[in-house]
């Protein structure tokens, strides 16, 4: 697991049926591109988050493939329809195989 990874997610606690809500996610990650060299001239191996997904009650909301040019601490904001009460499940996949997860439930107002 890369050092100092911390996921932050902002999801409204309640929503109306069929309401479109804005979700914001941010994960702290250094997103080492693999193109830089250290002070001895050796390549620093790539270490990024390569995929981010969000699902609501098992249905995919968004699935993002990320590449080396994505900046440090990737931030995603997107809209989702809330058809029923349930849980948003956010997952980040690291190059080194680690998976970071975050869950937030939404109630119907």
């Amino acid at each position, binding site marked *: 697991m890369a050092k*100092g990874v*911390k996921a*932050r997610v902002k999801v409204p606690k309640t929503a109306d049926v069929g309401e479109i809500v804005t979700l*914001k996610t*941010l994960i*702290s990650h250094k997103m080492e591109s693999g193109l830089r060299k250290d002070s001895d001239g050796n390549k620093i191996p790539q270490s990024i988050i390569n995929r981010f997904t969000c699902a609501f009650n098992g249905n995919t909301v968004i699935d993002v493939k990320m590449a080396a040019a994505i*900046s*440090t*601490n990737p*931030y995603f904001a997107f809209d989702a329809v809330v058809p029923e009460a349930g849980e948003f499940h956010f997952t980040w996949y690291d190059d080194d195989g680690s998976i970071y997860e975050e869950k937030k439930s939404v109630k119907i107002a």
Partner: protein
Amino acid sequence: MKFKKLITVVVGALAIPFAAIAGEDSQLTVEGQLMVTSVAAPAHMENVDEIFSGWVFRKDETQALQMDDFDNPAFIFIDKAIDTFSKVEGTAGKACVSCHESPEVFKGLRASMPRINSSGELETIPELVNGCRTERMGAEKWKWSGGDMAGIIGLIGLQSRGMTVNVAIDGAASSAWDKGKDLYYTRVGQLNMSCANCHEDNYGNMIRADHLSMGQINGFPTYRLKNAKLNTIHGRFKGCMKNIRATPYKEGGDEFKALELYVASRSNGLTIETPSVRN
């Protein structure tokens, strides 16, 4: 950009008070809390009538980042600092939380720092933190502007957000304050500039692609878009001095501490915005 426009308008219509023109869009509210971004200058400032928070000088996009704690990237580091706060380190087997119940106990501290301590010396928050680490925790000192330090002083400063800056400059503090004032107005470096040349004589004007602010430190530690991390007050002083081709003073040294006191006193009346977002 907005600021420049305002200045032009004020010059064009001298009779209209500034606040009336500023309008709603120049109000900074963070998580519903209204911040004071412009106020009459403290009495000791001879050349300036009104002081402005650095937030006023930034672009709309940058300004918006600071208005929501989720959008504010500084909170990544604050979150990390919350973890650090309860992390046991050092020979005494203690964490911050062993003595200080929660970060909230530091409410108000940031607004009155730097201050003169009981032994008559000027002290700053990083020194308090390192004092705790070496004396009570038996841990190693943190670097003045390192990531751990910037995070924890950000967390401490956050507790005072919205409070009015009120730094004491009289009594025991007056000699350090005088020294800081001298430094502020002393020209140094190859470009032969003082702090005042930019931040007093030319605030609101462009310096290359950027607006010069008044150099207020009420939002520090601040997240800068240019280096994507929290920046400390002394780190910023150092950057300024490098820009004018001067040899920077030492971070945590007497010069910067005195300068910090003087610059902090120039923002007396503004609110603490820690952690702010700047470019």
